[in-house]
């Protein structure tokens, strides 16, 4: 079948045909050997996970080189949802920017607004009154609970257990209802204002929220029984996707991903930009293992801690105005400010450059998922295809937070 063996009649009877045939037979033999070797070698395969894949929560694409089911290399390719927010912010006014910013991490929108508003307030030299700070902190933590509780169930789906995510959707709805009651929006509240908040809390909200927080603690217990204590869950997560401390730090991992690698670092405690976290009693959870299970565990503890933070804040909320005196048309003096907060996904910061005037000159948005996902090529090497999904799930990213 090899072209080398096909020879025309003239050649066959030409002098030296025997030598030629010998040579051709040798070549054919070599080719056959090579073929056998190729067939025995498993060879590489490129598997394209995404941009349309249920595990990528959107349009992340991961190009993997596989040997069998083992990953040789994995490279995330983004940009399918890049909306150019940094450029768009440059042509909008400060209040208009918050509309965009809401849509970065769409599961914890209110928490996105806060650092941007704080940065603008820093530049303007205004400060929101205490009551506004308190309500901001409460809504911030509610966003965290809404966001992370979905993760707690979603991790089950990544590992093949369908039921937890339905429980998570059911119970997250309670938190979203509370957010909606205050802000009018389930997902994109657009509620934070430079100098305070749009509105005060509605009547009866505090008692309702206490009840919801108790329910969410129940939800955490349920997830612990259903998922975290499950042997299969532990087999799938323990020792998988281990990220050591120094690697996590140098990749700029933040949030629970960093704390699950044993780094005791929480911006709410360590760089409090002026919200009410320092007024109450709470703790930062860390886990020394750095594997998928540790990340799940830390998020579970943080959700519980957040419910306690909300409870305490609800009890200690001061009276007073919710808005300080700011001009009707917001003009931000020239200057630069960087404010970052500990968002549900990690460190979210805004570097705002103002040249004076109504809109920012440049806004650099430091999103947590961008850095968190940048570790994927490092952590995926040598894992198996099913582990890609669990590691991605445990790193917990929101696509809008990667692509902005």
């Amino acid at each position: 079948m090899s072209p080398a063996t096909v020879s025309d009649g003239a050649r066959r009877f030409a002098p030296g045909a025997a030598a030629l045939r010998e040579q051709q037979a040798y070549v054919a033999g070599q080719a056959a050997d090579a073929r056998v070797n190729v067939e025995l070698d498993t060879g590489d395969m490129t598997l394209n996970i995404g941009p349309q894949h249920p595990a990528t929560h959107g349009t992340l694409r991961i190009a993997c080189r596989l040997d069998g089911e083992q990953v040789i290399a994995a490279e995330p390719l983004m940009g399918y949802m890049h909306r150019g927010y940094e450029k768009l912010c440059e042509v909008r006014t400060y209040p208009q920017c918050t509309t965009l910013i809401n849509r970065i991490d769409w599961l914890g929108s209110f928490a996105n607004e806060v650092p941007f508003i704080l940065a603008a307030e820093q530049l303007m030299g205004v400060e929101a009154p205490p009551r506004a700070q308190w309500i901001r902190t409460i809504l911030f933590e509610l966003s965290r609970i809404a966001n992370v509780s979905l993760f707690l169930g979603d991790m089950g789906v990544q590992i093949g257990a369908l039921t937890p995510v339905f429980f998570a959707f059911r119970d997250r709805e309670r938190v979203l209802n509370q957010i909606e009651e205050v802000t009018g929006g389930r997902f994109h509240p657009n509620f934070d204002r430079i100098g305070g908040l749009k509105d005060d809390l509605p009547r009866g909200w505090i008692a309702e929220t206490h009840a919801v927080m108790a329910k969410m603690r129940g939800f955490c217990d349920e997830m612990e029984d259903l998922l975290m204590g499950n042997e299969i869950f532990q087999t799938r997560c323990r020792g998988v996707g281990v990220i050591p401390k120094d690697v996590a730090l140098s990749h700029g991992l933040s949030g629970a991903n960093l704390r699950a690698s044993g780094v005791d670092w929480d911006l709410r405690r360590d760089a409090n930009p002026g919200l009410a976290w320092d007024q109450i009693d709470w703790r930062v959870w860390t886990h020394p293992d750095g594997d998928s299970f540790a990340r799940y565990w830390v998020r579970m503890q943080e959700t519980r801690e957040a419910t306690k933070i909300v409870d305490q804040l609800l009890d200690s909320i001061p009276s007073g105005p919710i808005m300080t005196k700011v001009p009707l048309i917001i003009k931000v003096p020239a200057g630069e400010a960087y404010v970052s907060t500990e968002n549900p996904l990690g460190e979210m910061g805004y570097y705002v450059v103002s040249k004076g005037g109504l809109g920012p000159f440049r806004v650099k948005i430091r999103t947590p998922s961008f850095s968190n996902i940048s570790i994927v090529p490092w952590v995926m090497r040598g894992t198996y295809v099913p582990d890609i999904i669990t590691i991605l799930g445990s790193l917990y990213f929101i696509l809008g937070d990667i692509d902005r």
Partner: protein
Amino acid sequence: MSELTLTGALGLAYWAETSIKLGVALVVIPTAALMLGYLFLLKMMAFMQSRLGPQDVGPSGSLQLIADAIKFLQKEDIHPAAADRRVFRAAPVVVLASSFLLFVVLPTGPDAVVENLDTGVFYALAVSSLSVLGVLMAGWASASKYALLGGLRAAGQLIAYELPLILAVMGVVIQANSLNLQEIVRAQATGEIFGFGFVGNPFILTQFIGFLIFMISAQAELTQTPFDMPVAETELVGGFHVEYTGFRFLLFFMAEVATTFAFSALATVLFLGGWWIPGFDFDAPILNVLGPMVMLAKILLVAFVIFWIRFTYPRLREDQLQKFAWKVLIPLSLANIVVTGIFKVVL
């Protein structure tokens, strides 16, 4: 084998008997089982996952299966450009056929059995493994890497789980002294434990380890969580059937439910005493009516357990599954056979 046959009782010709049996085997049993099972599955799944479940189609959504079938039939039938079309089309039929063929030997009453084969156990186990062939065909013919991975996983799973499945059944066969499923039911009905024979001797009592191994292997055979790696929605996006649409997907879907019920029926016959009701004479004609009902109740019970596990557990990884099969299940089932054999000889 029972002397009373349809031919004898009703004086039907052989061809008429055969066509009735064929109709029952291929249409009536699977359809009835599917309808009931599907609704049961949907409602139970909804309850477990705190959802409402089907509500609108018929009373309490009881016609949901028909609505789903119509929905799937309306969809476009897409073949991937690079697919091997003939194999691609044949695969769902192979899978469905293998699960429907299982119903042929399952006894549901003293005479209510389509074909009372003397090698019923052998036939059932052989036919049930055919479905993996269809899965492999689907995975290969789809010309998709996800489907290929799914098909390969299914093949790996077959090798690992067919062995403990068969070895677990061996214990029952040794105890019942027969490969005939009807005889296995009879052995359970007439057997007695420690001289107490009113409920007979359902082999779940003496073969409990075998039952556990059978259920675990069946779970893997059915590609249900925690062994659903060939499907693995969140990794392989549906695995071997990722490229299937419309009616062909429906065939896979029906096969999944039908096979679950076939295996539940097999477990019922082998371990739970089959169709026999304590207190009745084994050949009582009334059992031809009551037997299927008892069978169905037991099948639903076993299917409930299968789906309960499915909706509670996460998924194992393929290598973890293989380790579990080769290092735990197979030695355990071999030990089970040895112990059963010793008891058989000694007692």
